[in-house]
């Protein structure tokens, strides 16, 4: 739906971003609480709010919204309009109150969606809540452990049980070190849901000819140099296996290896 349609159905006046009126939006989000906008708002939305300050405008910019509608005839008195122009946001003002404005907004599917609870419910149905990617360069021992430490700090901050965090940290660290020792480079992808944490390490490198053999405790192809640094004792993959709830290794000799690890967040010890 175009922003213009919303402007018309709300009888709104334009404050900034006239040239953006034809922009397509997918959702409407109504709230006065900006931390909720940041946490639950989806990109390509428009915000209905009674908070007529620059904070609402900057929050909308952060949440990748396309515009803001101020209700009950409010107009921001600060530099909101300038900020909106600089960041290609549409600002509208409607005389309607929040409730009335919500009722009048027609969804792109023909029904009213401008309801905080509805928007909230929709965003809850999304499977993977947080996805993050990191990269690791082979051979760079000085950076060994940076990714696992960041992953660990992220999971701790979210509030996962420290025992799960520990398992994830150990496996990510082992995987990261394997990349540094044996591969050219890798992407490490972290996917987080309340019940499962997944870490996928996808490397470009020589690959593992015999995965079963590599899984055996004590088997190693590490050089003396790596052993001198305390690695390559053949414990990496077995250690990972002991600490994951599900482990998949696929390897293409001459191309690379993919290590896919899953951790159940309510299983603390393995």
């Amino acid at each position: 739906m175009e922003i213009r349609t919303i402007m018309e159905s709300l009888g709104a006046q334009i404050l900034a971003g006239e040239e953006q009126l034809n922009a397509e939006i997918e959702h409407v989000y109504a709230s006065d609480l900006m931390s909720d906008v940041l946490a639950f708002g989806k990109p390509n939305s428009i915000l209905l709010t009674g908070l007529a300050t620059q904070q609402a405008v900057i929050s909308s910019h952060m949440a990748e919204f396309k515009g803001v509608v101020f209700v009950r005839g409010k107009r921001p008195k600060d530099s909101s309009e300038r900020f909106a122009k600089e960041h290609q946001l549409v600002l509208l003002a409607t005389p309607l109150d929040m409730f009335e404005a919500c009722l009048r907004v027609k969804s792109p599917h023909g029904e009213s969606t401008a309801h905080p609870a509805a928007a909230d419910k929709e965003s809850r149905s999304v499977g993977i809540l947080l996805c993050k990617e990191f990269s690791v360069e082979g051979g760079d021992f000085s950076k060994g452990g940076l990714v696992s430490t960041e992953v660990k700090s992220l999971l701790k901050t979210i509030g996962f049980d420290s025992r799960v965090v520990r398992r994830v940290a150990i496996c990510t660290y082992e995987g990261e070190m394997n990349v540094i020792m044996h591969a050219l480079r890798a992407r490490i992808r972290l996917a987080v849901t309340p019940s499962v944490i997944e870490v996928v390490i996808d490397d470009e490198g020589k690959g593992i000819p015999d995965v079963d053999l590599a899984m055996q405790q004590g088997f190693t192809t590490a050089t003396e140099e790596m052993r001198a640094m305390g690695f390559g004792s053949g414990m990496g993959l077995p250690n990972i296996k002991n600490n994951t709830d599900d482990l998949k290794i696929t390897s293409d000799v001459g191309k690379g290896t993919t290590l896919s690890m899953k951790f159940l967040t309510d299983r603390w010890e393995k």
Partner: protein
Amino acid sequence: MGEVNSDHVASPYYHAHRIDLEKCRGHMACMRHCPTQAIRVRQGKAVINNELCIDCGTCLSVCPEGAVRPISDPVAQLSRFRYKVVVPTAVLYSQFDPSIHPYIIHRAFHKLGFDMVVDVTPMSAVVAAALIEYVKSYRGRLPLISCYCPSIVRLVQVKYPDLVELLVPIDVPREITAREIRRSLPARLNISPEDLGIMYVATCPAKIVSIRQPAEKATSWFDGAVPLREVYSALLPHVIAIKQEFDAAQVPPDFHFDGNWVLEASLARDVRTERGLTVSGLDHVRNILDDIENSRLRNVDFVEAHAHMLGCVGGPFNVENPYVARSNNFKRGYDYGDPVTLNQADIETKMENGFFSIEHPVLPRPTKYFDTDLETSIKRMKERDRVHDKLPQIDCGCCGAPTCLAFAEDLVRGDADLTECLPLSSRPLAP
């Protein structure tokens, strides 16, 4: 209006320092240096998050206005006790020129009104021996971590809850010393236990907190603690006066001074050197704790960690530069030091009787960043990253948070406004 408690919300955690709001001018030095990012500047004044604070005292050392003030028990408070004992930190001696005999310092304490001065170092030697025994006979997850530095204990409780089980359950020499004084002295002097007051002289706020609100026991064996620098100023004139007419022959034959246990590596040196590791300075300590969590530290059985560089000589309540203090300590130890002779059999018996054991287990104290269910917290974390990507990432600190990431975290928690980011809202700087 002297000391103002900047935190109006009741917190279960006691701290030994406060921001003096009248003196604080919002210079942000404390905010930038705080190792746990526990400080924000709001409306031009520093605010300490009580849950995150580990009492290391870094803020005290860096504040240009002296607005972070220690809260201590005034020495005068001890006057309610008939018999007053002081247990100074071993570091105290190192604050004075090495030519000054340790007995002079004890005499100066008597001038201040103390009836007895007890050197904590003999107990340090005994506790270290017990620790070696413990590490040798321990079979379990490694490496063990020393409990000696109370800031490290708190750091582990707050930021590394999973490592709490690695803290060695042996009490610190100062507490055991105070306990033994309390157990034996009243009978020896024929006074009532209530008449005995014991005071500790501390090198950092963490030790004062560990006495006011111990992590590992219900109450401390001390009646109070004062910052070293306050005691130093009171002692100095007496020390100078006594020195002028001092003759080494005046030292009683039973006077004993150990002179050790001031520096880092005092413990790990003795605990099977090849399997021990000593680390000091919070940045380095955090690296090591991260390594332990990633199970990277594979060839180490014991970690001695100190919050301050070089160990307690680096504490914020000290007067002397840590390197000078270390040098003083070497010289004084060489001239006057007499290491205690250990009775190994006695130590083993005492270990079996729980003489050294901590009284309560240390429990994790994990921080709740988002006090919400996991799903909501994950979303807030996602938003934190999204917001952070759009912030200028120059860590200018103008918003009152130490880094753009910390600001993004505050923001999604609802503790900050986006308009506080000056570069983003392109608002002119407030005059």
